[in-house]
């Protein structure tokens, strides 16, 4: 049972990392729009066909 002294701190470390990551994601604005993202993950991302008169798409950055 001595392993507890080793495993529990590791669990706490994971906990801290998870909180850090989540807080980073929130501050990064990734949860600002729950409605849109909830809808977007379900859509088969199918980029709309470019209009005929345009030759090149702008490269996304």
């Amino acid at each position, binding site marked *: *049972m001595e392993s507890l002294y080793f495993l529990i701190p590791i669990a*706490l470390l994971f906990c801290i990392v998870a909180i850090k990551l*989540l*807080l980073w994601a929130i*501050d990064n604005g990734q949860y600002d729009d729950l*409605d849109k993202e909830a809808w977007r993950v379900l*859509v088969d991302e199918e980029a709309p066909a*470019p*209009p005929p008169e345009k030759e090149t798409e*702008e490269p996304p950055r």
Partner: protein
Amino acid sequence: MADAQATTDPTPCFHCGEPLNGEDRFAVEINGVSKPMCCPGCQAVASLIAGSGMAGFYDQRSAYNERPEQLIAAPAESFAPYDDPQLAQLFLRREADQQWHASLLIGGMTCAACTWLIEHTVQRLPGVASANVNLQQGRLDVRFDRDQLPCSALFTAVAALGYRVQPFEANARREQLALDYRQDLRRLAVAGIGMMQVGMFGVALHAGDIQGIASEYQGLLRWVSLIVASFVVIFSARPFFQSAWQHLKQGALVMDLPVALAIGLAWVASGWATLSGTGQVYFDSIVMFTFLLLLARFIELRSRRRDNGNWLDAQSQLPVTVTLQKENQWVQVPRLQIQADDRLLVTAGSVFPADGKILVGASAAREDAFSGEHLPRDIAPGDSVFAGTVNIESAVEISSYGTYADTRLAALQRSTESGRQGKPRLAGLADRLASRFVAIVLLVTAATAVFWSQVDPERALWISLSVLVVSCPCALALATPAALANAAAALRNAGILVHGDNALEALARTNHLIFDKTGTLTHGDLTVAKVIAISGQDAAEALALAGSLQQYSNHPIAEAFSDVDGKRQVESADYRIGAGISGVINGVTYRTGSVEFCRELCPALPQPPTISDYWIALVSEVAPIAWISLNDPVRESAAAVIQWGNAQGLTIELLTGDSSGQGPLLAEQLGISEVRAGQTPEDKLAHVSQLQTAGAVVTMVGDGLNDAPVLGRADTSIAMANAADLTRAQADLVMVDADLQIIPIAFRKARQCRRVILQNFAWALSYNACAIPLAASGYIAPWAAAVGMSLSSLLVVGNSLRLNRPVR
């Protein structure tokens, strides 16, 4: 998805979902199938979407689009002023060389698919690096190269898709809301992860309690639980302590007080148990309670903040730029630069940008914003005009009285804000219960402590503490937010959005239901009601003649004739402002318009048939032809809703700015007992405050700008679908469609919600009533407290979920 929501009308407009009224003049081919459209606006937008390969949008959307009115009102040139560097500062930021960031506020997004459409359309524009739409805030962020793409092109591209677009100006309140939202989410995240971690330790500790555990490991598990739980209490549970303390300072006992007491005392007791190595710890209950309560409140708040237009104010409908005379030259300047005595040019069809006096020109001003009346007021040199009203007939030059702050519109906005502040705070059911709850729990705890100190002094402290923990008002505190969030979700699906803080509780307790007239009980547009032919003339023929002449007017009356069939060729048509139209049809001169104007041509014209209706005459040079009466038709659903209200025992009132005889007439027709006509926005506000002082709980239904103050003041308020921006922002509930039938539905749901809240309370209290005696007699172990708390909370949430069922 879009087809599934086709309502009662067999084939609505494919784009906006409004009924076609049997007309099929417009259509657009989408994915090879011709789809009907209701108007040129929808047709233009739909063909643009289909033409640019975005037709997939229609398969993905879950709600109809808004009818694109701005497209006709705002041509591409109107966005040109946004290229002006000074104006662009409002919404543009330089991020790097060649890289600019613009934020636009977008109105009319009805579902998430709209974000897809806008993002992809904007991303295709030359020079755009990225485009991101935030649906919750109605905001578009674009990074682009200004040399390749002028700002106005961004506005034009979005407007062409049928959305309303304006600069997203930084605004302290809005920034604060966004910050609060993230802070809530942070607290929730920390509480969630903390709950899982402490819960794991908790299971080990509970198992140890039952099976036996070495005190060494028990101490270790308690210590790590203490560390994590302390972090959760200090970081996540802070709002409960803050709110309880703030209200306590003002002498108010709110639900947050028992919550803060339970969390605080349980934490202190468990901490002491850990330090001293005695007694019992309740860390798992503490963090679970914190998480569940934060979650319920977050969901409830989010359901109300969704599509909330609370950043809109009265200024948002004024033009961005104005034509101003500088050194004998007309120049375009941003509206904010207007000073007193500036000379401004206001074209026909545009909104007056400032209060002022007419210098040159005569026209008519539609002032429904202030009076609720749809017939315009004639204006001539020397008359005053007001910002926010519409110049209808011809261009005029005005001399401004001052800046925006001096206008009547700004005064209306201020009175709206003061109305809002005066809004009575109906103490929520939960808060009223909270004070008694706290008193009872403290009394029982004290009694327990006294009793056990006589019987068994060693156990007295721990048993009294277990009473406090077991009485933890988790289910009690969850009861309200869980029910409100579910009721709001159901109402949203039924077609009414809930924004207000206490809207549903106030709605359930309403005993006064007050309606505005124009645009609320009526459609707000003039239509031809009756045609009375004079001396052997043909009525249908008369209507066709009048309709032919009315084509040459842009007065609102002319719109009533836009659907008339059989229009003739008119020669030398002449429109006289404030009087009527004359013209020659088949060699005969005709006039239509006011009595005086028509008598000039045909003195034989008799008096109008009645006084109360609004009549216009039609005469030829030979003889009088007909009287045509115009009215604003009552909404089909109005009578049924009034009848329902009367049957429910609500006092129904009509409060209208219209001073003509129409108000009382309409009230009589619909069965409304109390009418007040000719009310200014201030009168309406005063009347409602007076009712509230007398103890009434008032629900106000309105649409106009003039209703905004009273909507802010009423205990709860409902804005019509087509209401002015400021009015929508003030209202607690906003309708999605113009159907008044939603009002009884909202009332039923609100009452159902109140019943569910009461059931939740009954359950939570009876749970406490059973658990507290057990705890007081020393029978409840920490694991039993944790299980009991979760089960009673689950039951409350489950009961609240029943509200989510669709409303009938």
